[in-house]
Structure formats: structure tokens, C-alpha cells
């Protein structure tokens, strides 16, 4: 079991290193950071001073090492716009984003999974076809279109809910709905196909042949097996808790990490962009690690050596 963890931990660290290197290389490739940050018409001496201050004249690998050290110290550079440390700026916004994405995640799990299971159990019934059509709609309607439609109906036409801002919980309802509906549709479709796959397996027939009533056979034998593939997509959803709401936050001008990223990209505030990139990478990697651990728990075949499959 230890080797199983070690392997997965190594892969997680490798991914993080890849992301950091990606950010470092892309930053350097995108032209001279000094010119990008200082306006092009700034006097040459100022640019030279800036280069010196940022150590841009040192050999590339030295900058890379210093870059890594800075990350470990949590010093991800200052925001170009208002000089505050990037990490501080980003950290402020995290609670706002989580206020959207966590309830949305709950909605996705609460609606998506039961709907998928129900559709699989009543194959080709009305419920099954309804779930499938909704799933295709959820999968194809862009989040900003869905958001704007909800605003049009509930905010503009009916006036029940505000169309933007973050003053009270009522402001969060539409964004959460927008995130939740899309995600629930995707999860329902995935859960349904996982369940259908499991229901067709011979061990389900053995359970019936043993005299296990259908309902208990589904609960005891089908669900634990269908959980294994479903964990992957739930892991991805958990991993994108920070990254998942970029568009929706912009639609509802919700001051979360996503909104900050869009503004930072527009203003080419590179330090903030880097910081968010690393933060999202960290959450994704740890979510994937958690999924791998869960695999070990859910699927005994990963834990112990199979009886030698003879050639």
C-alpha cells in the first residue's frame, strides 16, 4: 500500500513542478517582463533599474532557482496594479469563490447522482429520457448563456433576485444555480452510464440467483461498484472548486478568484495570474491525490496482488 501512495505522491509533485516550470517559461517567452510591466515609453534608465531589481539580467537558470525559492517562501511577487503582494490579493477572494462553488458542488452531488442512478434503474422510462435530454442540454448550454437567461427571467422580468453583486445570500442564488445545473447534468449522465455498466455485470445476476431482492442487490452490489468510476469525475469537480467559477463570477460580477483572474489577465497583471495558476494547480493536484487514495479504499483489486495471471 505504501508504494501505491508513494507513486501517487511523486506524480502529484511532478505535476506541480511542471505547472511552475510552465508558468516560468511562458512568462519569459512572452517577451521581456520589464517592458511588459513598465509601459513601453518609460525612460531606459527606469527599465534598466527595474531589470536589475527583478534580477532579469542574471542567467536564466539562476532566475529559475530564485523563482522556485520565492514560491516556497510564498512570495509570489507584487500585483503590478496596486503593489500589494499577489498572494494576499488572491487569498482575500477565496472565501467569496467558495461561497459559490461549495453550495454548487453540493447541488451537483445532491441532484446529479440520484438522477443518474434513477435513470439507470428505470432504463428507457420517461425519467430516463428526461434526465438524458437535460444532461445533453446541461452539457451544451454555456454557463454564461444560462446565467444571463436566469438573470433575464428572475432578475429582470420577475425581479425576485438581484442580478449582480455580493451584498446578501440572495445575490448568490442565481450564480449557484448556474454552476449547479450544468454540473448536475454532467454528473447525472456519467453516473447513469456507470450504473448501466455495473447492472449488466454477471455478479448482479449471481446476487439475484442467490435470492437477494432487487432493491438490496442494487444497494449492496451495484452502488459500491458504480462508485469507483464516479469518484474520478467528482474528484475533478472538487479540484476545480477555485477554478470552476471564472465565467459565472464575471456574469454576476461576483468578487471571487475567477473575477480577479479575468481582470488580472486583461491588465496582464502577471504576478496575480501566476499566483492563481499555482493555487488552482495545487487544489487540482490534491483533489486528484485524494481520488487516488479513495480508489485504494473503494477497489480492493488495487490494494492486493491478483492471483498470477498466467501467460
Amino acid at each position, binding site marked *: 500500500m505504501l508504494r501505491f501512495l508513494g507513486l501517487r505522491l511523486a506524480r502529484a509533485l511532478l505535476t506541480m513542478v511542471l505547472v511552475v516550470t510552465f508558468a516560468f517559461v511562458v512568462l519569459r517567452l512572452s517577451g521581456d517582463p520589464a517592458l511588459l510591466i513598465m509601459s513601453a515609453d518609460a525612460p531606459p534608465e527606469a527599465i534598466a533599474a527595474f531589470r536589475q531589481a527583478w534580477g532579469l539580467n542574471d542567467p536564466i537558470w539562476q532566475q529559475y532557482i530564485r523563482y522556485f525559492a520565492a514560491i516556497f517562501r510564498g512570495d509570489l511577487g507584487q500585483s503590478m496594479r496596486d503593489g500589494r503582494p499577489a498572494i494576499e490579493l488572491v487569498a482575500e477572494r477565496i472565501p467569496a469563490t467558495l461561497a459559490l462553488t461549495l453550495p454548487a458542488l453540493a447541488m451537483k452531488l445532491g441532484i446529479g447522482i440520484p438522477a443518474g442512478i434513477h435513470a439507470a434503474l428505470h432504463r428507457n422510462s420517461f425519467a430516463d429520457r428526461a434526465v438524458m435530454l437535460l444532461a445533453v442540454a446541461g452539457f451544451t448550454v454555456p454557463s*454564461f*448563456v444560462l446565467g444571463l437567461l436566469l438573470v433575464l427571467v428572475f432578475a429582470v422580468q420577475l425581479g425576485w433576485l438581484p442580478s449582480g453583486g455580493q451584498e446578501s445570500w440572495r445575490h448568490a442564488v442565481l450564480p449557484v444555480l448556474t454552476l449547479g445545473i450544468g454540473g448536475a447534468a454532467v454528473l447525472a449522465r456519467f453516473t447513469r452510464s456507470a450504473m448501466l455498466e455495473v447492472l449488466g455485470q454477471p455478479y448482479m445476476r449471481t446476487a439475484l440467483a442467490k435470492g437477494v431482492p432487487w432493491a438490496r442487490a442494487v444497494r449492496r452490489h451495484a452502488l459500491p461498484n458504480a462508485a469507483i468510476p464516479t469518484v474520478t469525475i467528482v474528484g475533478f469537480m472538487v479540484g476545480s472548486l477555485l477554478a470552476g467559477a471564472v*465565467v459565472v463570477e464575471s456574469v454576476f460580477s461576483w468578487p471571487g478568484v475567477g473575477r480577479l483572474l*479575468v481582470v488580472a489577465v486583461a491588465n496582464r497583471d502577471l504576478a496575480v495570474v501566476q499566483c492563481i495558476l499555482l493555487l488552482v494547480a495545487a487544489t487540482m493536484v490534491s483533489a486528484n491525490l485524494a481520488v487516488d487514495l479513495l480508489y485504494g479504499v473503494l477497489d480492493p483489486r488495487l490494494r492486493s496482488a491478483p492471483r498470477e495471471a498466467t501467460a
Partner: protein
Amino acid sequence: MSDIPLGAMPAPAVSAPPARRQARLPALVVLALGWLVLMLLVAFAADLLSPFPYTALDLRNRLSPPVGMGGVWLHPLGTDELGRDVLSRLITSIRMSLLIAFGATAISAVLGVTLGFLAAHFRGLVEHAVLALVDFQASMPFLILALAVLAFFGNALPLFICLLGLNGWERYARIARGLAVSAGSQGYAAAVKGLGASPWRVYGRHVLPNIASTLIVSMTLAFPEIILLESGLSFLGLGVQPPMTSLGNMVGYGREYLTRAPWILLAPSSVIVMTTLSVSLVGDWLRDRLDPTLR
């Protein structure tokens, strides 16, 4: 799921299965195909079809509603805040969005399949490298990567298309590698290699044609994703830059006038939804007919 119990699989089909087995085209799929053909026509004949140049201003009847809501036939779908004809802008946007989507899908398919074949053929280190890349790509939400690159490199259309081309390539790589390996190890490819065929002949004449159908199906599944991604980025103002226009940034610009002139963003929104819906429906139908193994 095999619908006939395992123990009693019917003897292999000697004569063709009855016609009933080939279900005729379901109505939804026919509609979807019709819509897609319309979109392609619009994309190709954009200049001929659009009544006005898409940047022509007509400040006199600025923000006039579509013909259905009291508008005038001159601008059937109404005009935007600068009096530009929504229909003309829509047509050009369709062409732009489809161009980007086809370009990006092509790039990601070619990139994915080549890397998949390389991994399947050379196994060993190459395979591990490709699989590590696939793993890395799958573990990062693409939107964030795209935004980061856009931030660093600014935004030029070719770069934007190549960037979108990087989305989803790992799916093709995984499929191409899987099929090539399974065909190579005990399948028909190994048999043909055993006849003395050169690797080029094995891949060119046998593996690629067999994989093509599976790849086409997965392209139709990836296509909507790219349209959503492009329109999302353009909606945020980070994708297609004015004066060029795409469905996404039409919706973006229409947002300020949501209350007074909702038709500015409703037209492109409905086109996006209809197109992605149609491609998904055709994709699902194709997958069930061509290759049920691909979930």
C-alpha cells in the same frame, strides 16, 4: 450492456441481421443535421448572405427591436447600441466561431493521434512521457491554462486557435494509443505484421482506417467543448478581439443592454446552444451506431 444473456449469445450472424436492427434516423438527429448544414452554408456564404457589412453603423435606428417585436424589416433581428445590424454580425460571428472550432479540433486531433501512435509504436520511455503529458493536461482545468497563456502572450487570432487546439488533445492521444496497442498486440495489426507487412503499411492501411471512425465520433464529442470554450473566453473579452466578432463576444457586448435590448445577446446565445446541441446529438447517434464501446 449486452441485452442478450451471456449464456445464449446467438450464433454469429451468417446472413445480415433484419432491417429492424438498422434503426432509421431519429427525428431529433435529422433536425440536428439540418441545423448543422445550415450553419455550414452560412459560414461559407457569409459575405453573400449578410445584408450589411458587419461594421456598418446606422445610428438613426439604433437599438431597434427585431421584426417580431415591432422592428422594421430592414433589420430583421434588430440593431445593437451602435445601430449595427444584428443579423449581419451574427452571420459573420458564426463563420468566425465555426472557423475557430474546426481549426482547433483539427489541431488537437492531429496532435493527439500522432502522439498516441508514437506512444503505441515506441512504447517504453516515449510512452511514459506521452502518458505523463496526458496526465498533466487532464489534471488541469483548461480554462485556467488558456487564460494564463493569453495573459502572457496577449491575443492574436492564430495564437488563440492554436491554444484552443491544445484542449482535448489528450483524449485523442489516449484513444489512438489504446486502439493501436490493442490492435498491435493480438489484433489484426499483429496478424498483418506477421504476414511481413512493413510498419507503414500496417498503420496506414489497417490501424488508421479502423481508428478513424472512433476518432470522428470523439471529435463530435469534443467539438461542442471547443465552441463553449471559445465563446466563454470571447465573452470575457479575452478571446476574439474587436473589430473581429464571434458569437461569444457578441453575447459579451450585448450584456450591458440586457434589460433594454435583450435581442442583441439572445440571437448569438441561441445559435451557440442550437449548434452545440446539434453536434452532441449527432455525436451520440454516431457513437451508438459506429462504436458503442466509446462511452
